[in-house]
Protein backbone atom coordinates (compact mmCIF):
# COMPACT_ATOMS: atom_id res chain seq x y z
CA UNK A 1 0.00 0.00 0.00
CA UNK A 2 1.80 3.12 -1.17
CA UNK A 3 0.40 5.60 1.31
CA UNK A 4 0.62 3.48 4.41
CA UNK A 5 3.86 4.91 5.72
CA UNK A 6 6.08 7.82 4.92
CA UNK A 7 6.41 7.72 1.15
CA UNK A 8 9.33 9.57 -0.36
CA UNK A 9 8.44 12.61 -2.40
CA UNK A 10 10.37 13.95 -5.36
CA UNK A 11 9.36 16.04 -8.35
CA UNK A 12 9.62 14.21 -11.65
CA UNK A 13 11.69 17.13 -12.99
CA UNK A 14 14.25 16.54 -10.23
CA UNK A 15 14.41 12.87 -11.11
CA UNK A 16 14.96 13.92 -14.73
CA UNK A 17 17.90 16.13 -13.78
CA UNK A 18 19.52 13.26 -11.87
CA UNK A 19 18.82 10.78 -14.65
CA UNK A 20 20.51 13.05 -17.18
CA UNK A 21 23.68 13.26 -15.12
CA UNK A 22 24.01 9.50 -14.73
CA UNK A 23 23.23 9.04 -18.42
CA UNK A 24 25.89 11.63 -19.25
CA UNK A 25 28.43 9.61 -17.29
CA UNK A 26 27.58 6.41 -19.15
CA UNK A 27 27.34 7.81 -22.65
CA UNK A 28 29.32 10.64 -24.13
CA UNK A 29 27.00 11.04 -27.10
CA UNK A 30 24.37 12.53 -24.81
CA UNK A 31 23.90 16.28 -25.32
CA UNK A 32 21.36 18.54 -23.63
CA UNK A 33 19.62 21.66 -24.91
CA UNK A 34 17.54 24.16 -22.98
CA UNK A 35 15.86 27.50 -23.64
CA UNK A 36 16.69 29.73 -20.66
CA UNK A 37 14.91 27.53 -18.14
CA UNK A 38 17.70 25.16 -17.10
CA UNK A 39 17.24 25.91 -13.40
CA UNK A 40 13.57 25.03 -13.61
CA UNK A 41 13.81 22.01 -15.91
CA UNK A 42 16.82 20.76 -13.90
CA UNK A 43 19.05 20.38 -16.95
CA UNK A 44 21.34 22.75 -15.04
CA UNK A 45 22.59 19.66 -13.20
CA UNK A 46 23.82 18.22 -16.49
CA UNK A 47 25.17 21.63 -17.56
CA UNK A 48 27.27 21.74 -14.41
CA UNK A 49 28.61 18.21 -14.82
CA UNK A 50 29.18 18.37 -18.59
CA UNK A 51 29.41 22.03 -19.66
CA UNK A 52 30.76 21.13 -23.11
CA UNK A 53 27.75 18.98 -23.91
CA UNK A 54 25.14 21.50 -22.78
CA UNK A 55 23.73 24.15 -25.10
CA UNK A 56 21.58 27.01 -23.87
CA UNK A 57 19.84 28.23 -27.01
CA UNK A 58 18.22 31.19 -25.26
CA UNK A 59 14.52 31.95 -25.43
CA UNK A 60 14.18 30.34 -28.85
CA UNK A 61 12.31 27.04 -28.64
CA UNK A 62 11.81 26.60 -32.37
CA UNK A 63 15.51 27.11 -33.03
CA UNK A 64 16.26 24.67 -30.22
CA UNK A 65 14.23 21.85 -31.82
CA UNK A 66 15.94 22.37 -35.17
CA UNK A 67 19.35 22.40 -33.52
CA UNK A 68 18.52 19.14 -31.74
CA UNK A 69 17.58 17.60 -35.08
CA UNK A 70 20.96 18.57 -36.50
CA UNK A 71 22.77 17.16 -33.50
CA UNK A 72 20.88 13.88 -33.94
CA UNK A 73 21.88 13.64 -37.61
CA UNK A 74 25.42 14.30 -36.44
CA UNK A 75 25.31 11.18 -34.30
CA UNK A 76 24.49 12.73 -30.93
CA UNK A 77 21.69 11.80 -28.56
CA UNK A 78 19.97 15.12 -27.80
CA UNK A 79 17.69 15.67 -24.80
CA UNK A 80 15.72 18.89 -25.27
CA UNK A 81 13.99 20.65 -22.39
CA UNK A 82 11.78 23.60 -21.62
CA UNK A 83 8.29 24.04 -20.17
CA UNK A 84 5.73 21.70 -21.75
CA UNK A 85 3.65 24.53 -23.22
CA UNK A 86 6.62 25.92 -25.15
CA UNK A 87 8.19 22.57 -26.15
CA UNK A 88 4.98 21.21 -27.64
CA UNK A 89 3.12 24.39 -28.51
CA UNK A 90 5.57 26.99 -29.67
CA UNK A 91 7.79 24.51 -31.45
CA UNK A 92 5.14 22.04 -32.63
CA UNK A 93 5.80 22.26 -36.32
CA UNK A 94 9.56 22.12 -35.84
CA UNK A 95 8.99 18.94 -33.83
CA UNK A 96 6.81 17.57 -36.60
CA UNK A 97 8.91 18.57 -39.62
CA UNK A 98 12.50 18.41 -38.38
CA UNK A 99 12.26 15.65 -35.75
CA UNK A 100 9.31 13.32 -36.35
CA UNK A 101 8.96 13.37 -40.12
CA UNK A 102 12.61 12.30 -40.62
CA UNK A 103 12.19 10.03 -37.55
CA UNK A 104 15.20 11.40 -35.71
CA UNK A 105 16.49 10.24 -32.38
CA UNK A 106 15.59 13.31 -30.34
CA UNK A 107 14.21 13.12 -26.78
CA UNK A 108 11.99 15.99 -25.74
CA UNK A 109 11.60 16.07 -21.98
CA UNK A 110 9.28 18.86 -20.95
CA UNK A 111 8.63 19.96 -17.39
CA UNK A 112 5.95 22.12 -15.74
CA UNK A 113 3.12 20.25 -17.42
CA UNK A 114 -0.46 20.57 -16.24
CA UNK A 115 -2.19 22.88 -13.81
CA UNK A 116 0.13 22.14 -10.89
CA UNK A 117 2.44 24.73 -12.47
CA UNK A 118 0.24 26.84 -10.21
CA UNK A 119 0.51 30.60 -9.81
CA UNK A 120 1.98 31.38 -13.25
CA UNK A 121 -1.49 30.68 -14.58
CA UNK A 122 -3.19 29.48 -17.75
CA UNK A 123 -0.60 30.80 -20.20
CA UNK A 124 1.97 28.49 -18.63
CA UNK A 125 -0.20 25.46 -17.81
CA UNK A 126 0.01 22.94 -20.59
CA UNK A 127 -3.21 20.94 -20.80
CA UNK A 128 -2.95 20.01 -24.49
CA UNK A 129 0.60 18.68 -24.84
CA UNK A 130 -0.23 14.96 -24.67
CA UNK A 131 -2.79 15.40 -27.43
CA UNK A 132 -0.61 17.43 -29.78
CA UNK A 133 2.41 15.16 -29.34
CA UNK A 134 0.39 11.94 -29.57
CA UNK A 135 -1.05 12.88 -32.95
CA UNK A 136 2.34 13.15 -34.66
CA UNK A 137 3.43 9.95 -36.46
CA UNK A 138 6.64 8.30 -35.09
CA UNK A 139 6.31 10.06 -31.74
CA UNK A 140 6.36 8.08 -28.49
CA UNK A 141 4.62 9.75 -25.52
CA UNK A 142 5.44 8.94 -21.91
CA UNK A 143 4.04 10.43 -18.69
CA UNK A 144 5.84 9.06 -15.62
CA UNK A 145 3.90 8.87 -12.35
CA UNK A 146 6.73 9.47 -9.90
CA UNK A 147 10.47 10.04 -9.46
CA UNK A 148 11.66 6.45 -9.76
CA UNK A 149 9.55 5.82 -12.85
CA UNK A 150 10.97 8.99 -14.42
CA UNK A 151 14.51 7.70 -13.88
CA UNK A 152 13.64 4.44 -15.60
CA UNK A 153 11.75 6.19 -18.40
CA UNK A 154 14.75 8.39 -19.20
CA UNK A 155 17.00 5.32 -19.39
CA UNK A 156 14.44 3.60 -21.60
CA UNK A 157 14.05 6.45 -24.08
CA UNK A 158 17.83 6.73 -24.32
CA UNK A 159 17.96 3.09 -25.43
CA UNK A 160 14.98 3.45 -27.77
CA UNK A 161 15.62 4.66 -31.33
CA UNK A 162 13.28 7.48 -32.44
CA UNK A 163 11.58 10.64 -31.22
CA UNK A 164 10.13 10.60 -27.71
CA UNK A 165 8.16 13.06 -25.61
CA UNK A 166 8.41 12.69 -21.83
CA UNK A 167 6.14 14.82 -19.67
CA UNK A 168 7.35 15.91 -16.24
CA UNK A 169 5.86 18.09 -13.53
CA UNK A 170 6.91 20.92 -11.27
CA UNK A 171 5.86 19.73 -7.81
CA UNK A 172 6.95 16.95 -5.52
CA UNK A 173 4.87 13.80 -5.88
CA UNK A 174 4.71 10.64 -3.75
CA UNK A 175 6.40 7.50 -4.99
CA UNK A 176 3.65 5.15 -6.11
CA UNK A 177 5.36 2.48 -8.20
CA UNK A 178 6.37 -0.65 -6.26
CA UNK A 179 10.03 -1.22 -5.52
CA UNK A 180 10.45 -4.10 -7.96
CA UNK A 181 8.61 -2.26 -10.75
CA UNK A 182 10.28 -2.22 -14.14
CA UNK A 183 9.20 0.42 -16.64
CA UNK A 184 8.81 -0.67 -20.23
CA UNK A 185 7.75 1.58 -23.09
CA UNK A 186 4.20 0.66 -24.12
CA UNK A 187 3.46 -1.48 -21.07
CA UNK A 188 0.88 -0.47 -18.48
CA UNK A 189 1.32 -1.36 -14.82
CA UNK A 190 -1.69 -2.94 -13.13
CA UNK A 191 -1.71 -2.17 -9.39
CA UNK A 192 -4.83 -4.26 -8.85
CA UNK A 193 -7.31 -5.61 -11.34
CA UNK A 194 -10.54 -4.60 -9.65
CA UNK A 195 -14.00 -6.02 -10.18
CA UNK A 196 -16.55 -3.24 -10.52
CA UNK A 197 -14.57 -0.65 -12.47
CA UNK A 198 -11.01 0.14 -13.49
CA UNK A 199 -9.27 3.50 -13.16
CA UNK A 200 -6.70 4.12 -15.85
CA UNK A 201 -4.50 7.01 -14.72
CA UNK A 202 -1.35 8.72 -15.86
CA UNK A 203 1.26 11.02 -14.30
CA UNK A 204 0.48 12.57 -10.95
CA UNK A 205 -3.12 11.31 -11.18
CA UNK A 206 -1.96 7.76 -10.42
CA UNK A 207 -1.47 8.73 -6.78
CA UNK A 208 -4.96 10.24 -6.69
CA UNK A 209 -6.39 7.11 -8.32
CA UNK A 210 -4.87 4.91 -5.61
CA UNK A 211 -6.40 7.13 -2.93
CA UNK A 212 -9.77 6.95 -4.70
CA UNK A 213 -9.52 3.16 -4.83
CA UNK A 214 -9.01 2.99 -1.06
CA UNK A 215 -11.92 5.36 -0.42
CA UNK A 216 -14.15 3.19 -2.60
CA UNK A 217 -13.06 -0.01 -0.89
CA UNK A 218 -14.57 1.27 2.36
CA UNK A 219 -17.87 1.56 0.48
CA UNK A 220 -17.63 -1.97 -0.88
CA UNK A 221 -16.59 -0.97 -4.38
CA UNK A 222 -13.65 -2.85 -5.87
CA UNK A 223 -11.92 -0.52 -8.34
CA UNK A 224 -8.79 -1.52 -10.19
CA UNK A 225 -5.95 0.93 -10.81
CA UNK A 226 -3.74 0.95 -13.87
CA UNK A 227 -0.75 3.23 -14.39
CA UNK A 228 -0.76 4.05 -18.09
CA UNK A 229 2.59 5.79 -18.27
CA UNK A 230 3.01 5.26 -21.99
CA UNK A 231 0.25 7.09 -23.82
CA UNK A 232 1.67 6.13 -27.20
CA UNK A 233 2.00 3.37 -28.15
CA UNK A 234 -0.96 2.71 -25.86
CA UNK A 235 -1.15 -0.66 -24.12
CA UNK A 236 -4.37 -1.67 -25.87
CA UNK A 237 -4.35 -5.13 -24.34
CA UNK A 238 -4.41 -3.67 -20.84
CA UNK A 239 -7.35 -1.41 -21.73
CA UNK A 240 -9.31 -4.23 -23.36
CA UNK A 241 -8.62 -6.60 -20.45
CA UNK A 242 -9.78 -4.02 -17.92
CA UNK A 243 -12.92 -3.24 -19.87
CA UNK A 244 -13.77 -6.89 -20.32
CA UNK A 245 -13.09 -7.66 -16.66
CA UNK A 246 -14.77 -4.67 -15.00
CA UNK A 247 -17.18 -3.39 -17.61
CA UNK A 248 -16.62 0.25 -16.67
CA UNK A 249 -13.62 2.54 -17.07
CA UNK A 250 -12.52 5.87 -15.60
CA UNK A 251 -9.52 7.73 -16.99
CA UNK A 252 -7.63 10.34 -14.97
CA UNK A 253 -5.08 12.81 -16.28
CA UNK A 254 -3.81 16.30 -15.51
CA UNK A 255 -4.64 17.33 -19.07
CA UNK A 256 -7.63 18.11 -21.23
CA UNK A 257 -10.13 15.25 -21.52
CA UNK A 258 -9.85 15.84 -25.26
CA UNK A 259 -7.13 13.97 -27.10
CA UNK A 260 -4.99 12.82 -24.20
CA UNK A 261 -5.23 9.62 -22.15
CA UNK A 262 -9.03 9.81 -22.05
CA UNK A 263 -9.16 10.27 -25.79
CA UNK A 264 -6.73 7.43 -26.44
CA UNK A 265 -8.59 5.03 -24.15
CA UNK A 266 -11.93 6.05 -25.70
CA UNK A 267 -10.58 5.15 -29.12
CA UNK A 268 -9.63 1.65 -27.99
CA UNK A 269 -12.88 1.08 -26.13
CA UNK A 270 -15.03 2.22 -29.04
CA UNK A 271 -13.20 0.04 -31.52
CA UNK A 272 -12.45 -3.05 -29.49
CA UNK A 273 -14.21 -3.29 -26.15
CA UNK A 274 -17.23 -0.99 -25.77
CA UNK A 275 -17.77 -0.10 -22.11
CA UNK A 276 -19.00 2.97 -20.23
CA UNK A 277 -16.25 5.54 -19.76
CA UNK A 278 -15.95 8.63 -17.56
CA UNK A 279 -12.99 10.91 -18.17
CA UNK A 280 -11.38 12.92 -15.39
CA UNK A 281 -9.33 15.87 -16.65
CA UNK A 282 -9.77 19.49 -17.68
CA UNK A 283 -13.17 19.82 -19.32
CA UNK A 284 -12.19 21.77 -22.43
CA UNK A 285 -10.94 24.74 -20.43
CA UNK A 286 -7.67 26.56 -19.86
CA UNK A 287 -5.95 26.59 -16.49
CA UNK A 288 -5.82 29.53 -14.13
CA UNK A 289 -3.59 31.00 -11.40
CA UNK A 290 -3.62 29.45 -7.95
CA UNK A 291 -1.79 26.99 -5.75
CA UNK A 292 -1.30 23.56 -7.29
CA UNK A 293 -3.29 21.60 -4.71
CA UNK A 294 -6.15 24.09 -4.83
CA UNK A 295 -6.23 23.88 -8.62
CA UNK A 296 -6.49 20.08 -8.62
CA UNK A 297 -9.64 20.46 -6.54
CA UNK A 298 -10.86 23.42 -8.60
CA UNK A 299 -10.72 21.37 -11.80
CA UNK A 300 -12.16 18.19 -10.31
CA UNK A 301 -8.90 16.25 -10.35
CA UNK A 302 -8.82 15.03 -6.75
CA UNK A 303 -9.24 11.51 -5.38
CA UNK A 304 -12.80 12.36 -4.37
CA UNK A 305 -13.63 13.36 -7.93
CA UNK A 306 -12.20 10.11 -9.26
CA UNK A 307 -14.21 8.11 -6.72
CA UNK A 308 -17.38 9.90 -7.80
CA UNK A 309 -16.54 9.20 -11.45
CA UNK A 310 -16.14 5.50 -10.67
CA UNK A 311 -19.63 5.39 -9.19
CA UNK A 312 -20.97 7.23 -12.22
CA UNK A 313 -19.32 4.75 -14.58
CA UNK A 314 -20.72 1.81 -12.63
CA UNK A 315 -24.20 3.34 -12.75
CA UNK A 316 -23.95 3.72 -16.52
CA UNK A 317 -23.08 0.07 -16.75
CA UNK A 318 -26.25 -1.03 -14.96
CA UNK A 319 -28.67 1.14 -16.89
Amino acid at each position, binding site marked *: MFHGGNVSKIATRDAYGDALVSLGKKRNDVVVL*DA*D*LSGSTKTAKFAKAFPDRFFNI*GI*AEQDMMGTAAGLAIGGKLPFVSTFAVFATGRAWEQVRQSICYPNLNVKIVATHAGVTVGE*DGGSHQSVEDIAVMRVIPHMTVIVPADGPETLQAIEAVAEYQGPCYVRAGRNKVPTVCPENYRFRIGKAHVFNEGKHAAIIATGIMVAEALKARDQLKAEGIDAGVINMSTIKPLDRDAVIAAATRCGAIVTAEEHSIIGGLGGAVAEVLAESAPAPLVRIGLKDTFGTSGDGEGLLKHYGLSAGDIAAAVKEAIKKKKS
Partner: protein
Amino acid sequence: MAVTEQQLQTLKDRARRIRIDILKMLTDCGSGHTGGSLSAADIATALYFYKMKYDPRKPGWKERDNFILSKGHAAPLLYTVLAQAGYFEHAELCTLRKIGSRLQGHPDSKCLPGVEISTGSLGQGLSVANGLALAHKLDKAPNRVYALLGDGELQEGQIWEAAMTAAHYKLDNLCALVDNNGLQIDGPVAKVMGVEPITDKWRAFGWEVLDVDGHDMEKIVTALDKAETIKGKPTMIVCRTVKGKGSKCFEGKVEFHGTTPTKEELATAMKELEEGVCK
Protein backbone atom coordinates in the same frame (compact mmCIF):
# COMPACT_ATOMS: atom_id res chain seq x y z
CA MET B 1 6.19 70.69 -26.18
CA ALA B 2 8.90 70.16 -23.63
CA VAL B 3 8.10 68.50 -20.35
CA THR B 4 8.11 70.83 -17.35
CA GLU B 5 10.18 70.41 -14.22
CA GLN B 6 7.03 69.95 -12.22
CA GLN B 7 5.66 67.30 -14.55
CA LEU B 8 8.92 65.43 -14.25
CA GLN B 9 8.79 65.54 -10.49
CA THR B 10 5.24 64.20 -10.49
CA LEU B 11 6.23 61.39 -12.84
CA LYS B 12 9.22 60.41 -10.70
CA ASP B 13 7.02 60.37 -7.66
CA ARG B 14 4.52 58.21 -9.51
CA ALA B 15 7.24 55.72 -10.53
CA ARG B 16 8.32 55.48 -6.90
CA ARG B 17 4.77 54.72 -5.77
CA ILE B 18 4.45 52.13 -8.51
CA ARG B 19 7.61 50.39 -7.30
CA ILE B 20 6.29 50.42 -3.74
CA ASP B 21 3.01 48.81 -4.81
CA ILE B 22 4.81 46.20 -6.91
CA LEU B 23 7.01 45.18 -4.02
CA LYS B 24 4.16 45.07 -1.53
CA MET B 25 1.95 42.95 -3.75
CA LEU B 26 4.76 40.55 -4.62
CA THR B 27 5.85 40.12 -1.01
CA ASP B 28 2.27 39.52 -0.03
CA CYS B 29 1.71 36.99 -2.80
CA GLY B 30 4.95 35.07 -2.37
CA SER B 31 5.43 34.33 -6.05
CA GLY B 32 5.86 36.41 -9.19
CA HIS B 33 8.40 38.37 -11.19
CA THR B 34 10.19 41.10 -9.28
CA GLY B 35 13.24 42.10 -11.34
CA GLY B 36 11.59 42.69 -14.70
CA SER B 37 8.67 44.55 -13.13
CA LEU B 38 10.96 46.99 -11.36
CA SER B 39 13.29 47.57 -14.32
CA ALA B 40 10.44 48.77 -16.53
CA ALA B 41 8.63 50.89 -13.92
CA ASP B 42 9.88 54.23 -15.24
CA ILE B 43 9.04 53.27 -18.82
CA ALA B 44 5.49 52.23 -17.91
CA THR B 45 5.04 55.38 -15.83
CA ALA B 46 6.03 57.59 -18.76
CA LEU B 47 3.63 55.74 -21.03
CA TYR B 48 0.58 55.72 -18.75
CA PHE B 49 1.03 59.01 -16.92
CA TYR B 50 2.58 61.18 -19.62
CA LYS B 51 2.11 59.88 -23.14
CA MET B 52 -0.82 57.57 -23.71
CA LYS B 53 -4.41 58.52 -24.36
CA TYR B 54 -6.95 56.34 -22.52
CA ASP B 55 -10.00 56.44 -20.29
CA PRO B 56 -10.05 53.96 -17.39
CA ARG B 57 -13.85 54.25 -17.18
CA LYS B 58 -14.10 53.21 -20.83
CA PRO B 59 -11.43 50.54 -21.42
CA GLY B 60 -12.79 49.87 -24.90
CA TRP B 61 -12.77 53.54 -25.93
CA LYS B 62 -12.13 53.67 -29.69
CA GLU B 63 -9.70 56.57 -29.51
CA ARG B 64 -7.38 55.05 -26.92
CA ASP B 65 -3.73 54.32 -27.52
CA ASN B 66 -2.80 50.67 -27.07
CA PHE B 67 -0.17 49.18 -24.81
CA ILE B 68 0.99 45.60 -25.17
CA LEU B 69 3.11 44.01 -22.49
CA SER B 70 4.94 41.51 -24.65
CA LYS B 71 7.13 40.55 -21.66
CA GLY B 72 3.99 39.37 -19.88
CA HIS B 73 5.78 38.19 -16.74
CA ALA B 74 6.01 41.87 -15.72
CA ALA B 75 2.29 41.59 -14.91
CA PRO B 76 2.75 43.07 -11.41
CA LEU B 77 3.96 46.28 -13.06
CA LEU B 78 1.01 46.39 -15.45
CA TYR B 79 -1.50 45.70 -12.68
CA THR B 80 -0.05 48.40 -10.45
CA VAL B 81 -0.10 50.92 -13.27
CA LEU B 82 -3.68 50.02 -14.24
CA ALA B 83 -4.84 50.26 -10.63
CA GLN B 84 -3.17 53.63 -10.13
CA ALA B 85 -4.58 54.83 -13.44
CA GLY B 86 -8.06 53.96 -12.18
CA TYR B 87 -8.99 50.82 -14.13
CA PHE B 88 -9.87 48.97 -10.92
CA GLU B 89 -9.75 49.36 -7.17
CA HIS B 90 -6.32 49.53 -5.62
CA ALA B 91 -7.43 46.94 -3.03
CA GLU B 92 -7.73 44.29 -5.75
CA LEU B 93 -3.94 44.19 -6.07
CA CYS B 94 -3.79 41.82 -3.09
CA THR B 95 -5.64 39.11 -5.04
CA LEU B 96 -2.63 38.59 -7.32
CA ARG B 97 -2.26 34.97 -8.50
CA LYS B 98 -5.04 33.59 -6.30
CA ILE B 99 -7.74 31.23 -7.59
CA GLY B 100 -10.55 33.30 -9.08
CA SER B 101 -8.54 36.52 -9.31
CA ARG B 102 -8.60 38.74 -12.38
CA LEU B 103 -4.93 39.37 -11.69
CA GLN B 104 -3.53 36.24 -13.26
CA GLY B 105 0.16 35.31 -13.06
CA HIS B 106 0.42 36.62 -16.60
CA PRO B 107 -2.00 39.24 -18.01
CA ASP B 108 -5.33 37.83 -19.16
CA SER B 109 -7.38 40.10 -21.41
CA LYS B 110 -10.45 37.85 -21.02
CA CYS B 111 -11.00 39.06 -17.50
CA LEU B 112 -9.10 42.26 -16.76
CA PRO B 113 -10.14 45.55 -18.39
CA GLY B 114 -7.16 47.55 -19.62
CA VAL B 115 -5.21 44.50 -20.71
CA GLU B 116 -5.24 44.64 -24.52
CA ILE B 117 -4.18 41.02 -25.02
CA SER B 118 -3.16 38.03 -22.94
CA THR B 119 0.60 37.52 -22.91
CA GLY B 120 3.09 35.35 -21.04
CA SER B 121 4.60 33.28 -23.83
CA LEU B 122 7.46 35.50 -24.92
CA GLY B 123 8.01 36.83 -28.41
CA GLN B 124 4.41 37.25 -29.51
CA GLY B 125 3.46 40.78 -28.50
CA LEU B 126 5.10 42.73 -31.29
CA SER B 127 3.15 40.84 -33.96
CA VAL B 128 -0.09 41.73 -32.18
CA ALA B 129 1.02 45.35 -31.94
CA ASN B 130 1.61 45.31 -35.71
CA GLY B 131 -1.92 44.06 -36.24
CA LEU B 132 -3.38 46.85 -34.13
CA ALA B 133 -1.24 49.44 -35.91
CA LEU B 134 -2.41 48.11 -39.28
CA ALA B 135 -6.04 48.34 -38.12
CA HIS B 136 -5.57 51.98 -37.10
CA LYS B 137 -3.99 52.68 -40.50
CA LEU B 138 -6.96 51.09 -42.27
CA ASP B 139 -9.27 53.30 -40.20
CA LYS B 140 -7.08 56.36 -40.86
CA ALA B 141 -7.20 56.78 -37.08
CA PRO B 142 -4.54 58.64 -35.11
CA ASN B 143 -4.24 56.04 -32.30
CA ARG B 144 -0.72 54.99 -31.37
CA VAL B 145 0.45 51.52 -30.38
CA TYR B 146 3.15 50.78 -27.79
CA ALA B 147 4.79 47.43 -27.06
CA LEU B 148 7.25 46.60 -24.30
CA LEU B 149 9.74 43.80 -24.90
CA GLY B 150 12.45 42.16 -22.82
CA ASP B 151 16.04 41.95 -24.03
CA GLY B 152 16.09 38.17 -23.53
CA GLU B 153 12.79 38.09 -25.38
CA LEU B 154 14.59 39.40 -28.47
CA GLN B 155 15.99 35.87 -28.85
CA GLU B 156 12.62 34.68 -30.11
CA GLY B 157 12.59 34.49 -33.90
CA GLN B 158 9.04 35.84 -34.11
CA ILE B 159 10.30 39.19 -32.84
CA TRP B 160 12.41 39.57 -35.96
CA GLU B 161 9.61 38.44 -38.23
CA ALA B 162 7.49 41.17 -36.66
CA ALA B 163 10.35 43.64 -36.99
CA MET B 164 10.25 43.12 -40.76
CA THR B 165 6.47 43.41 -40.93
CA ALA B 166 6.43 46.72 -39.04
CA ALA B 167 9.07 48.28 -41.28
CA HIS B 168 7.56 46.81 -44.46
CA TYR B 169 4.17 48.35 -43.73
CA LYS B 170 5.78 51.61 -42.54
CA LEU B 171 4.01 51.44 -39.20
CA ASP B 172 4.94 54.89 -37.91
CA ASN B 173 2.03 54.69 -35.46
CA LEU B 174 3.95 51.95 -33.64
CA CYS B 175 6.57 52.50 -30.97
CA ALA B 176 8.27 49.51 -29.34
CA LEU B 177 10.49 49.68 -26.28
CA VAL B 178 13.09 47.20 -25.06
CA ASP B 179 13.71 46.88 -21.33
CA ASN B 180 17.42 46.32 -21.90
CA ASN B 181 18.33 45.15 -18.39
CA GLY B 182 21.03 42.72 -19.47
CA LEU B 183 19.59 39.74 -17.59
CA GLN B 184 17.29 36.82 -18.31
CA ILE B 185 16.58 33.68 -16.21
CA ASP B 186 19.69 31.55 -16.69
CA GLY B 187 22.08 34.52 -16.37
CA PRO B 188 23.29 37.60 -18.26
CA VAL B 189 21.81 37.84 -21.76
CA ALA B 190 25.35 38.16 -23.15
CA LYS B 191 26.27 34.80 -21.62
CA VAL B 192 23.10 32.84 -22.40
CA MET B 193 22.59 33.99 -26.01
CA GLY B 194 23.96 37.32 -27.09
CA VAL B 195 21.56 39.80 -28.69
CA GLU B 196 23.91 42.74 -29.18
CA PRO B 197 24.30 45.00 -31.05
CA ILE B 198 20.62 45.69 -30.40
CA THR B 199 20.42 49.21 -31.84
CA ASP B 200 22.27 48.27 -35.04
CA LYS B 201 20.01 45.28 -35.55
CA TRP B 202 16.78 47.28 -35.35
CA ARG B 203 18.26 49.98 -37.56
CA ALA B 204 19.23 47.37 -40.13
CA PHE B 205 15.64 46.09 -39.99
CA GLY B 206 14.43 49.54 -41.06
CA TRP B 207 13.41 51.05 -37.73
CA GLU B 208 14.15 54.44 -36.25
CA VAL B 209 16.14 53.63 -33.12
CA LEU B 210 16.53 55.76 -30.00
CA ASP B 211 18.85 54.70 -27.19
CA VAL B 212 18.07 56.10 -23.73
CA ASP B 213 18.72 55.63 -20.04
CA GLY B 214 15.55 53.79 -19.04
CA HIS B 215 15.58 55.29 -15.56
CA ASP B 216 15.96 58.91 -16.65
CA MET B 217 12.36 60.14 -16.81
CA GLU B 218 13.22 63.20 -18.90
CA LYS B 219 15.06 61.09 -21.47
CA ILE B 220 12.21 58.59 -21.69
CA VAL B 221 9.46 61.16 -22.23
CA THR B 222 11.61 63.07 -24.71
CA ALA B 223 12.13 59.87 -26.69
CA LEU B 224 8.39 59.12 -26.63
CA ASP B 225 7.69 62.63 -27.95
CA LYS B 226 10.32 62.22 -30.64
CA ALA B 227 8.90 58.85 -31.73
CA GLU B 228 5.61 60.56 -32.56
CA THR B 229 7.36 62.81 -35.06
CA ILE B 230 9.03 59.98 -37.00
CA LYS B 231 7.21 59.33 -40.26
CA GLY B 232 7.33 56.35 -42.62
CA LYS B 233 8.81 53.81 -40.19
CA PRO B 234 8.31 52.37 -36.72
CA THR B 235 10.38 53.50 -33.77
CA MET B 236 12.26 51.35 -31.30
CA ILE B 237 13.36 52.89 -28.01
CA VAL B 238 16.14 50.83 -26.47
CA CYS B 239 16.00 51.59 -22.75
CA ARG B 240 19.14 50.87 -20.77
CA THR B 241 17.86 49.65 -17.41
CA VAL B 242 18.89 47.84 -14.26
CA LYS B 243 16.93 44.70 -13.43
CA GLY B 244 15.38 45.06 -9.97
CA LYS B 245 15.79 48.87 -10.03
CA GLY B 246 14.61 50.57 -6.84
CA SER B 247 16.54 48.87 -4.08
CA LYS B 248 20.02 47.48 -3.54
CA CYS B 249 18.30 44.26 -2.47
CA PHE B 250 17.30 43.40 -6.03
CA GLU B 251 19.37 45.51 -8.41
CA GLY B 252 21.34 43.50 -10.95
CA LYS B 253 20.54 40.24 -9.20
CA VAL B 254 19.59 37.46 -11.59
CA GLU B 255 17.91 35.41 -8.84
CA PHE B 256 15.26 38.11 -8.43
CA HIS B 257 13.84 37.38 -11.87
CA GLY B 258 11.19 35.12 -10.41
CA THR B 259 11.76 35.41 -6.67
CA THR B 260 9.74 37.68 -4.39
CA PRO B 261 11.11 39.79 -1.52
CA THR B 262 11.20 38.60 2.05
CA LYS B 263 9.58 40.83 4.70
CA GLU B 264 13.05 42.13 5.64
CA GLU B 265 13.97 42.91 2.03
CA LEU B 266 10.66 44.69 1.61
CA ALA B 267 11.34 46.82 4.68
CA THR B 268 14.81 47.75 3.41
CA ALA B 269 13.45 48.55 -0.04
CA MET B 270 10.62 50.69 1.38
CA LYS B 271 13.15 52.72 3.31
CA GLU B 272 15.34 53.24 0.24
CA LEU B 273 12.37 54.17 -1.93
CA GLU B 274 10.91 56.51 0.65
CA GLU B 275 14.23 58.30 1.12
CA GLY B 276 14.41 58.84 -2.62
CA VAL B 277 11.24 60.96 -2.61
CA CYS B 278 12.80 64.34 -3.32
CA LYS B 279 15.68 63.25 -5.53
